[in-house]
């Protein structure tokens, strides 16, 4: 009964979203105030019924109702409660319900925090989001119903959640990633609303910015969580694999990064308008394409859900309808947009344009690398694979150029910056960062390495230019503190996010070039040396968990002869499926991670194992935290709220005649 109620609730949400996708938009076109004002209550309605559906599905998981197909497929009675609950998003149907619920959540947030925006605009934004809801819920009801029952004979027990997913990372990574992904739908809806209204001034850019920043920040965290999870759970010590399903979030993230910068230019200077609108559409397309790739079985990958061409065709239809429709609308409306102001060759506008070009080119090249094997197969029927070498060869140089510009961009001024001024500002910084880049790695590594020098010099360059810019900003203030206090939050957010880039660069660069790894066969009491560390295998014991049995090894780690840590890697066999799985043991540290993965037991009590030393790897995720914090702080800038109110007053004034019409 409960699953049927869930299904019923989903159908109600569908019906309400049909109203939401039509009535307010028609109301906005015909200036019918009543119709427009239905947008907010309808959004709340869609949210509530999707929430009910989600809770009821969760109930089926928690109570082990194996007559529900996805519960039988993804859960098991032995599963610990936290995984029973989250097994909900362990497969295609449940995760898509979560995805749609997230969209409704964003929609509700927009309807609540848009009181100061014109009614007509809000009606269009929520209407566009409503259309997306219609597509998504229809997709669920038609091809992937999460409440599908197994009749007449349900299985006695479920087939269990994929053992690789039974981990803390699985609890946090998918919801965060989805929330970030779906957040770009909001920015997309703002852009479409602006195109529909034909009023492409900088107001919509101002309204979009906090939403774009928030979505971007959450996506950053979502991707970082995925990378962290892959690192400690998959046990091969990698943090990024250029997997075809890892790439779409990165593509979306790069486009989103370009978008938040381009929005700034559009808001402040009223230029690049059509470009910004296009980016908003593309970032959204990136997020939908990610869904398409994961759920259609288009590409084979560790992330992919079951292959099903009918689902693929459906999502492709959604893509064509939403993104194709948006691009068509863009083609018709964009020529109306005119830049209000000019700028010269050396100006902040140009630096931001460079940023955009580099980010979009890198997103495009990752896109190409991800889809090329499929395109190639479509044309020639042969299979090829494009591995990390391609992606690294393309991505790394582009990022190095981007980071060079990242230093000067924030220092330059709008409209026109004199080259002499910039040179004067940065010449000392260039020299100092180069010195740090050469000297610091020499002290630590005791040898010269070009890779380390490039990383450290670039990171210093970013941090020092931020410092220089900051001192310029507070130089003529009464005191340092009053200067810092007077900084706008959006500026603070930018500084933090840029510092995050530097931190991540150190982490990614040094880990990629200076990690150590050895695979060995160790008997009890034997040891292996790696770098300045030694790992001693003390023996193993048998263990039994709630839904698995296995072995746990006891390994001491010594540095220069002193014991610093004991590690307990495990090898488990999950009872429900008999799948083996390794649980690596990590000693995480600010400057390095030490870890061990346990292989198989051989004759004489010896175990095969792999030991690793990963310098600075935590900095990758630390950098992501900086970036996300920066995005959130920038989104919280009070300025948007104040300006928005003034903006609305102007808008209402201009609209006066039609408002009168409504009143009569």
């Amino acid at each position, binding site marked *: 009964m409960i699953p049927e109620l869930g299904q019923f609730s989903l159908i109600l949400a569908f019906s309400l979203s049909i109203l939401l996708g039509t009535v307010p938009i028609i109301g906005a076109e015909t200036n019918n105030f009543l119709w427009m004002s239905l947008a907010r209550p309808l959004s709340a309605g869609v949210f509530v019924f999707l929430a009910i559906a989600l809770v009821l599905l969760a109930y089926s998981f928690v109570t082990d109702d194996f007559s529900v197909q996805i519960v039988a497929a993804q859960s098991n009675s032995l599963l610990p409660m936290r995984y029973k609950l989250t097994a909900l998003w362990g497969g295609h149907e449940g995760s898509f319900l979560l995805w749609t619920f997230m969209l409704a959540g964003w929609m509700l947030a927009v309807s609540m925090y848009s009181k100061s925006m014109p009614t007509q605009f809000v009606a269009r934004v929520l209407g566009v989001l409503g259309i997306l809801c219609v597509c998504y819920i229809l997709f669920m009801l038609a091809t992937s119903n999460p409440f599908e029952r*197994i009749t*007449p*004979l*349900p*299985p*006695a*027990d479920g*087939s269990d959640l994929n053992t690789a997913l039974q981990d803390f990372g699985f609890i946090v990574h998918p919801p965060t990633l989805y929330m970030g992904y779906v957040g770009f739908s909001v920015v997309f809806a703002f852009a479409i609303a602006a195109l529909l209204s034909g009023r492409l001034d900088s107001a919509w850019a101002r309204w979009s910015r906090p939403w774009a920043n928030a979505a971007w920040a959450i996506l950053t965290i979502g991707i970082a969580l995925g990378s962290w999870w892959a690192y400690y759970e998959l046990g091969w010590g990698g943090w990024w694999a250029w997997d075809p399903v890892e790439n779409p979030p990165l593509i979306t993230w790069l486009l989103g990064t370009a978008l938040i910068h381009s929005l700034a230019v559009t808001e402040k200077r009223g230029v690049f308008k*059509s470009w910004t609108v*296009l980016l908003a*559409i593309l970032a959204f*397309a990136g997020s939908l394409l990610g869904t*398409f790739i994961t759920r*259609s*079985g*288009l*590409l*084979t990958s560790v992330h992919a859900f079951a*292959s099903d*061409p009918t689902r*693929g*065709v459906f999502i*492709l239809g959604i*893509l*064509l309808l939403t*993104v*194709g429709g948006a*691009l*068509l609308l*863009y*083609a*018709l409306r*964009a*020529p109306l947009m005119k830049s209000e102001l000019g700028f010269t060759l050396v100006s902040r506008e140009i630096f931001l344009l460079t940023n955009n070009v580099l980010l979009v080119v890198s997103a495009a090249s990752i896109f190409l690398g991800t*889809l090329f094997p*499929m*395109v190639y*197969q*479509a044309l020639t029927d042969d*299979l090829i694979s494009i591995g990390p070498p391609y992606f690294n060869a393309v991505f790394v140089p582009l990022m190095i150029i981007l980071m060079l510009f990242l230093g000067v961009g924030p220092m330059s001024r709008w409209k026109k910056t004199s080259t002499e001024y910039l040179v004067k500002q940065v010449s000392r910084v260039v020299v100092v960062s180069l010195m740090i880049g050469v000297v610091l790695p020499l002290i630590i590594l005791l040898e010269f390495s070009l890779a380390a020098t490039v990383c450290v010099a670039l990171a210093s360059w970013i941090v020092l230019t931020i410092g220089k810019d900051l001192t310029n900003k507070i130089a003529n203030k009464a005191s340092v503190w009053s200067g810092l206090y007077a900084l706008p939050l959006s500026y603070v957010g930018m500084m933090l996010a840029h510092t995050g880039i530097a931190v991540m660069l150190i982490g990614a660069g040094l880990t990629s070039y200076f990690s150590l790894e050895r695979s060995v066969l160790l008997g009890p009491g034997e040891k292996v040396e790696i770098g300045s560390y030694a790992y001693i295998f003390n023996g193993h014991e048998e263990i039994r968990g709630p839904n698995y*049995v296995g072995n746990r090894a006891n390994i001491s780690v010594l540095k220069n002869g002193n014991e610093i840590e004991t590690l307990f890697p495990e090898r488990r*066999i999950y*009872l*429900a*499926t*008999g*799948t083996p799985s390794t649980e690596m043991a990590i000693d995480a540290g600010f400057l390095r991670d030490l870890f061990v993965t346990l292989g198989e037991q051989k004759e004489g009590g010896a175990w095969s194992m792999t030991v690793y030393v990963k310098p600075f790897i935590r900095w990758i995720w630390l950098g992501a935290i900086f970036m996300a914090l920066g995005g959130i702080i920038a989104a919280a800038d009070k300025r948007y709220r104040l300006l928005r109110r003034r903006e609305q007053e102007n808008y209402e004034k201009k609209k006066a005649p039609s408002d009168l019409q409504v009143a009569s």
Partner: protein
Amino acid sequence: MNRLKFFAPVLFFVALGGILWRGLYLDSRTLPSMLIDKKMPEFALGTVSGEEVTNKDLPGQIFLLNVWGSYCLPCLVEHPTFMRLSEEGEIPVVGINYKDRNELAKDWLSTNGNPFTYSIQDEDGRFGIDLGVYGAPETYLVDSEGVIRYRHVSVLDEAVWQQEFLPAIAELRAESE
């Protein structure tokens, strides 16, 4: 002309959509389909009870190939179905004792009953790799020529038997007539 350039994104996107659509129908070489309609891989292995078996010893009729292990709890769930099938003589069942120890497998069969014509002992999981086994339980439907025709991952209970296997078997029988 100037206005036309704004149509470039949508045209590009439609072209991309066409390629993606074509891509959907390409064989993405997922594991489940790999051995469907192929002959069972060559093998020469011992059984749980100690005889040597090869492809020649396969039943000369449609049979089930069931991957099981003494460590596998869901195998107990599907076990009654296989017992019934073999007792009623509906279809022969060949077992693959997958990544298991011989003593444990023997114990398991004597405790729970043995529905298998014989069980191939695949202690190191090599044969499982050749077959593309995910894990136990897993069941293949093999025809009289030794060609794999259907694959079912996870528990084969009465419901699965009725809904998936019986129609597939009926189809095979119709084909051979």
